[in-house]
């Protein structure tokens, strides 16, 4: 039986896995898509039209680094022509002022500029390259462009104590939104977790600081904060529910319910080269698998929160328990919560000092 799909709202378009940065928490899979397999401009344009027909309102261009696509202007134009709200999630490299103007002219609505920290040295350590100074230049150019700006700081053990400096950087810019998103532990971040997970004390301090900032900046800058869910009592409503609001297209055209779904074994993903977006959204095995409530084990099945968190995150369940159908182990009711408790205890234990120079597994680049 097919479980009925709702109207999708957002399409996350991973245009390429190529990236000039090597961030240690990259959400891309460890096995990166090859350049030769990337979808063409024509296929992407078709996908945008199909997305709008299916009801999608917004496209998020991401990667890797979406600016690494030589046809990025054509892609922005094609998406905007369909009426989609066009968002670019970028490191700001490679970019110059002329290119930025062209992007605005092509119809870009919103740019989300990522920062690895508030100052050069620690930021570059995380990015694995000298990127910070470039970002500051881009931020300066944005002041004179008609474009909505979000600054995205990815937060973790090594930079969570520098939130005040990050806020100051954002306040001196033209950003209308700041996201302080704690690392979520998938992909490269899962591999680097022990150097990234903050302590409870760090987390509590940061929540307090950002609550004050949110109040102070209301009406001027929207402040968003994402906590690391290992510290939560309940699981997050991952992607707003599996196959419920969002879908992600990989550089080669596989359509996934989320960034990390490829880690789940024996789950088949359909490709846009062979089927329409709508057909995949409504009927494909991958989207059907955890849509709705049928698949849920107890305690989710009879839990009041199942319509709020939709059973949490399937990829996290798999990564931490080896079973994608298990209750998200972040939930305090999950039989496997002790696994998460052990990870949190280790991050707060006496041996969990923050190393001056940890050994990182840097994200590589695809062939």
């Amino acid at each position, binding site marked *: 039986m097919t479980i009925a799909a709702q109207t999708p709202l957002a399409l996350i378009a991973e245009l390429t896995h190529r990236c000039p940065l090597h961030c240690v928490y990259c959400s891309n899979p460890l096995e990166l898509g090859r350049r030769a397999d990337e979808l063409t401009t024509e296929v992407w344009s078709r996908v945008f039209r199909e997305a709008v027909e299916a009801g999608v309102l917004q496209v998020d261009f991401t990667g890797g680094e979406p600016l690494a696509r030589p046809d990025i202007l054509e892609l922005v134009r094609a998406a905007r022509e369909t009426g989609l709200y066009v968002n670019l999630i970028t490191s700001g490299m490679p970019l110059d002022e002329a290119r930025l103007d062209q992007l605005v002219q092509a119809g870009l609505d919103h740019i989300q500029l990522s920062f690895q920290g508030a100052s050069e040295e620690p930021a570059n350590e995380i990015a694995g390259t000298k990127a910070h100074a470039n970002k500051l230049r881009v931020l300066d150019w944005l002041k004179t462009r008609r474009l909505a700006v979000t600054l995205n700081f990815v937060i973790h053990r090594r930079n969570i104590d520098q939130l005040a400096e990050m806020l100051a950087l954002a306040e001196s810019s033209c950003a*209308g939104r700041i996201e302080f998103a704690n690392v979520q532990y998938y992909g490269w971040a899962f591999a680097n977790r022990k150097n990234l997970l903050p302590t409870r004390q760090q987390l509590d301090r940061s929540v307090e600081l950002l609550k004050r900032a949110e109040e102070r900046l209301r*009406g001027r*800058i929207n402040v968003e904060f994402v906590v690391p869910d290992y510290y939560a009592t309940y699981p997050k409503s991952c992607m707003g529910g599996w196959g419920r609001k969002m879908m992600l297209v990989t550089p080669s055209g596989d359509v996934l319910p989320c960034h990390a779904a490829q880690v789940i074994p024996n789950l088949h993903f359909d490709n846009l080269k062979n089927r329409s977006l709508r057909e995949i959204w409504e009927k494909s095995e991958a989207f059907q698998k955890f849509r709705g409530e049928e698949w849920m084990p107890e305690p989710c099945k009879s839990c009041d929160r199942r319509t709020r968190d939709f059973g949490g995150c399937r990829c996290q369940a798999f990564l931490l328990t080896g079973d994608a159908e298990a209750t998200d182990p972040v939930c305090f009711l999950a039989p496997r919560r002790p696994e998460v408790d052990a990870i949190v205890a280790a991050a707060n234990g006496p041996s969990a000092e923050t190393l001056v120079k940890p050994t990182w597994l840097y994200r590589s680049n695809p062939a």
Partner: protein
Amino acid sequence: MTPELNSRPCLAVGCRLNEKGQPMRVLHMPERALRLNGPSLEIIERCDGQRTVKEIISELQKLYSKAEPKKVEEDILGYLARLHDQRALDFTSDPADRGDRAQ
């Protein structure tokens, strides 16, 4: 904040209405979209940087003439203030200044 009656609201940078003729009208904003129905759409369509808050209120009072005028005014002021807090609206005093950063 309470909007000034003589200020002129306009959509902030990065916010726009989707095209007419779509099955559902929405206000696009960075990282969210607001579904618009009758009155909210009527208000947003008038946030053009030309009309003052006062003019928008009086037009809506005519449009919804069965409703209590005071209530219409309060609802509009509350709605505009909320949208301002969400950074969807800018308020300017001069219609020539549409809040373009590029100028």
